[in-house]
């Protein structure tokens, strides 16, 4: 059975929330490993791992620098040079926080790398806030490669007219101006044309819509989504209640 995109989104989101609420590193490591296993089974691991590493490696290094080198509340000093004190508590805090963030990031990335974007857009209803959000999401994802390619073409055109990026801030600013202005100008013009086309097709008029793309959904999946959201909300309430009673 194929999962409805909103069901997998509910899965990913509630997993991230529950992992954050649980705040225990065995749970975090298990969730992270599970997410990696899921993406390997789905065949997306090859794209997911570099994307996750690009996010998590700088974050992890930053956590290590911040808490590993200076953790004023730490008692067990492992090494000390100058003002920097490496404490066991600091390292443990950095490790726990990194594990927990990795679990949440991996869970959400598994969703975004496995979801079928046209299905997701079709699942968001085709009018009102949902429809407009779906439009923004879909057109960003399709515009991103197109605009990157257009920026490359503009750079080539300017280079063929003699643009050389020399050292020095002023030269770089001038080069930026030469490339950014044609790009922004053409994008704003295109957007105007697109707005007229959308308006002519009744984009902002109210009323029912029909969709060419049918996304299969079932009562079980709808119930599952409700349960997942309720579980995430319950985890948050439980954690806040524990904090409120001093636990």
């Amino acid at each position, binding site marked *: 059975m194929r999962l409805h995109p909103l069901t997998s989104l509910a899965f990913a989101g509630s997993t991230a929330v529950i992992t954050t609420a649980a705040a225990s590193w065995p749970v975090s490591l298990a969730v992270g490993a599970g997410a990696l296993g899921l993406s390997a089974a789905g065949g997306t691991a090859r794209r997911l791992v570099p994307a996750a590493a690009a996010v998590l490696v700088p974050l992890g290094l930053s956590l290590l620098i911040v808490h590993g080198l200076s953790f004023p509340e730490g008692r067990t000093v492992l090494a000390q040079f100058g003002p920097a004190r490496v404490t066991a508590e600091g390292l443990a805090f950095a490790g726990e926080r990194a594990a927990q963030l990795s679990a949440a990031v991996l869970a959400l990335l598994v969703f975004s790398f496995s979801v079928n974007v046209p299905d997701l857009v079709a699942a968001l209803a085709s009018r009102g806030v949902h429809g407009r959000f779906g439009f923004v999401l879909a057109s960003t994802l399709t515009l991103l490669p197109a605009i990157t390619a257009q920026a490359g073409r503009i750079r080539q055109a300017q280079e063929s007219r003699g643009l050389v990026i020399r050292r020095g801030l002023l030269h770089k600013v001038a080069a*930026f101006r030469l490339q950014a202005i044609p790009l922004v100008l053409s994008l704003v013009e295109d957007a105007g044309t697109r707005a007229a086309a959308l308006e002519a097709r009744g984009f902002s008029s109210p009323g029912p819509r029909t969709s060419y793309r049918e996304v299969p959904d079932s009562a079980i999946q709808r119930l599952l989504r409700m349960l997942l959201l309720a579980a995430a909300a319950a985890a948050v309430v439980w954690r806040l209640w524990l904090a409120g009673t001093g636990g």
Partner: protein
Amino acid sequence: MSSPSLTLPSPAPAAARRRRLLEILGALAIAGTYIYLVLNQPADITGGPGSASALIALSGFLVGAILLIVAVLPTLPASTLVLIPVALVLNIVLGQFVGSTLVPFYLDAIGTVLIAVLAGPAAGAATGALSSIVWSFFNPTVLPFAAGAALIGCLAGLAARYGLFRRFYLAPVAGFATGIIGGVVSAPVAAFVFGGTSGVATGAIVSAFRSMGDTLLAAITKQALISDPMDKAIVFTVVAVLVYALPRRTRLQFPFVRRHRVLAGTTNEPAAAQGSTQTS
């Protein structure tokens, strides 16, 4: 460009009131979360990772940003709505370009500020929040910063509304002030959700403040006050350069620019009408 429809009935005042209520609720959620976190901060941060304050920061700021989107998005005309995806892509493409060739800042708000200047504070706030939400598709760690991005878009729109883009030298000043506010509001997210920052260089600055004995929130706020105002001053300057380079015809197709005389040298509507009657 697209004007209010002449054939369809205008939205009922009840709907407008509901949207206004949602806007206010969203702003209250963000402000309330910030105040709660700042008042309650030291008790929790070292008591264990990912405890209650991470969840409060995450849910409060996110709910606020989503309420703002729900309130603003249906009211935007199609001409503004089609610019939002362009702004999101510009945030990414121009930010990467500037970051890699010009200066070591991470200028990730150029598109948001551009929309705010052309289409007003509400569109700017929606663009900022949507930018974070859509970008979290690739990088989930930017999701909690949606409220901060919305605030920056809104402030940029207000700066344009009150004429700070009419004088070229005022744009960086407005950016500097926006950066101070945005940095202070985003710092609790970095502190409570991430327990640090997302970059190595900023992490080193936070570490330096920490070893002087600051709390984590204070250290991250000071780091944000070092890097954010400079960053936003550059972004506002870049946007001013871009907007003034657009042809007059393109600039003036935005009602916000015409009505509030956002840019120098562009006369407002009544004056333009007078001018045309005199010449005809």
